[in-house]
């Protein structure tokens, strides 16, 4: 009996105490797949731990539950030292007071990191001069096309409509596979037309501009005139069968398409988004950032680990390992790109498109306002409401919901 008691009660007690005393352990929550978490953990074991004497525990959190999990963890103060997260979340949690402001604490280091990271992604990670998260990876919207069906990908909006007319005549069309009927799908068109959601200072919305009207009209026409389907769940199947030989989607398909449809080898490619009236090809860029929670007892060491993950050599290794899982990891560090083992033709497009891209507006209150943009888009496309009125309403709501 006594033995049993010892086994069930005292032993776990000792273990839990022991765990608390380990000062040289960093816990990292990684939003993404189990495999990616394992890759990060392996790299840390291989290079980071021997050098620094700090071991890293990495747990994966799925995208769908991550935001909720972080908020719950913040409320309960049961946070890891570090976490990767959606692009805008770090600022959101930082505003709630849960994250370490990195610029203030490590000004020189952050300045160095900033220099090497794509400007397009950095802008979304920084909020009014404050940095709560360092970009960890990128996701960018691209044009996918079947080169056996479309000889030359459209370069301008004009050419896009011509290609679509041609496709429609053959009972084919295009899919907007990332952000159909919502703001993510619409944003590139808005920016390509020269419009934006907020003014530069982020003090008021400017969505009711002539540029935005042009963009929304064009976006709506894609659905209403050119048979772009509202749901885009079947992009893979449609692309494969040739019914949807054109599509706008994130870069994550690049490494999975060859596995899913080996028979199309050499028959498909990626291109830059077509130029809008402003002459820009601006795409939507997303990604993850990595930040440190205030509750961490190892803030300095945690930052060392962020610097470690930002090293070109490490980012390249992450790319290689992730590619083995049929997935893709795009490093935010500009300098590493020339060494990345991606097909040259793809790399060129990716690099160009990332340079000409924008992330979600870095304005507090944006996350709560996206629903008004979505409503305007859906009202115009689905309910045939007027573009002018919808954008006017949307602008009022957006300005109203800016948190100052």
């Amino acid at each position, binding site marked *: 009996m006594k033995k049993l008691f010892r086994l069930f009660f005292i032993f776990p007690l000792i273990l839990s105490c022991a765990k608390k005393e380990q000062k040289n352990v960093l816990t990292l929550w990684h939003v993404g797949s189990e495999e990616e978490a394992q890759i990060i953990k392996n790299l840390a074991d291989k290079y980071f731990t021997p050098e620094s004497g700090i071991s890293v525990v990495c747990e994966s959190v799925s995208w769908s539950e991550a935001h*909720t999990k972080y908020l719950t963890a913040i409320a309960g103060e049961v946070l890891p030292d570090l976490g990767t997260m959606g692009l805008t979340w770090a600022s959101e949690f930082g505003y*709630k007071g849960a994250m370490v402001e990195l610029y203030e604490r490590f000004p020189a280091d952050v300045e160095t990191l900033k220099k090497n990271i794509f400007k397009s992604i950095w802008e979304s990670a920084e909020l009014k001069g404050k940095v709560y998260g360092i970009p960890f990876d990128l996701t960018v919207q691209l044009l996918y096309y079947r080169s056996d069906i479309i000889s030359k990908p459209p370069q301008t909006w004009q050419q896009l409509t011509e290609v679509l007319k041609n496709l429609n005549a053959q009972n084919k069309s295009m899919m907007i596979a990332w952000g159909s*009927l*919502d*703001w993510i799908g619409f944003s590139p068109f808005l920016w390509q037309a020269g419009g934006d959601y907020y003014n530069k200072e982020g003090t008021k919305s400017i969505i009711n501009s002539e540029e935005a009207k042009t963009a929304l009209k064009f976006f709506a026409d894609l659905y209403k005139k050119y048979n772009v*389907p509202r749901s885009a769940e079947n992009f893979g199947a*449609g692309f494969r069968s040739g019914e949807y030989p054109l599509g706008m989607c994130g870069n994550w398909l690049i490494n999975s398409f060859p596995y899913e449809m080996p028979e199309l080898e050499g028959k498909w490619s990626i291109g830059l988004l077509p130029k809008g009236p402003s002459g820009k090809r601006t795409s939507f860029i997303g990604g993850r950032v990595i930040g440190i929670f205030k509750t961490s007892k190892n803030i300095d060491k945690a930052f060392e680990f962020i610097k470690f993950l930002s090293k070109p050599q490490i980012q390249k290794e992450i790319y290689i390992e992730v590619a083995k899982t049929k997935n893709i990891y795009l490093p935010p560090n500009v300098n590493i790109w020339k060494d990345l083992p991606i097909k040259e033709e793809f790399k060129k497009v990716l690099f160009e498109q990332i340079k000409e891209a924008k992330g979600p507006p870095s304005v507090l209150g944006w996350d709560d306002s996206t629903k008004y943009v*979505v409503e305007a888009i859906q009202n115009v496309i*689905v309910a045939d409401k007027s573009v002018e009125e919808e954008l006017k309403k949307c602008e009022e709501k957006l300005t109203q919901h800016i948190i100052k």
Partner: protein
Amino acid sequence: MKKRKKFKKHLISYLFILPAFLILSIFVFIPVVASFFLSFTEYDGISPPKVVGLKNYVDILFHDRLFWKAVINTVYYVIFTVPIGIACSLAVAMALYQKIRFSALFRTGFFLPTVTSVAAISVVWRWIYSGDRYGLLNYILTKLGVLAVLQDWLMQPSTTLPAIIVMSIWGGVGYNTIILLAGLQSIPDSVLEAAKIDGATPWERFWYVILPMLKPVMLFLVIMSTINSFQVFEQVYIMASTTEYFGGVLYSALTIVPYLYERAFKRFLLGYASALAYLLFAIIFMITLIYMKVSKFYEQ
């Protein structure tokens, strides 16, 4: 003294109840009370709750367009799901009651959706309703020549909620049927035989004998399905929501519980969501009371 003796006598019984009672207290009773207090506060889960009195309730009832949209959608959902669902179940139960061949097989078949998780069913039906030529429903209807233009069932406001209703009815038939079958089997054969001898036609036997005798079972089913339907969640959450919007295009399938979920666990407006929960409770409570009153009235 007597009381104490009684307690002693039932000590074992109390002990048996204790574990369940403790678990229920921690996960049900205490949260229910706590959320009642939260409903009068503003609480984001991080900073301590701030008491705001009736503000949440006033905001919901008078300034929240989405709440009313959700209420209307939910009522629409209940009005179609409950009567049609029970009518279908009754038809199936009557058919299975007629000792037909393979009735055990049919019974299992109809009951299968009940033991399958709603989430899994929703994912499958999402594919059935999928747009273009890839959705099963579109494929079948175009092959039959019923449909000229391909529909995107879950992406247009006019068909989203009906599509979900059809699925829910299908999913609910099994459970209702089993309960109704049990009710049917409890009707003594002698009563039916007597009716038969008196010259009642099958239709008359159904209408004047079977149906009245099924009344208690029916009342139970109506109340339970109404409550369940008011709380519809998974179907809407899985079939009509994306990461960027929820409850279907233009909130065409937004019902109360998914809205509550969005407020509470996406936006972390916990006070507001608690108030929503209590309003939902009030609605269900009132409807149940009305049912009870109506059924009592008919009994007299």
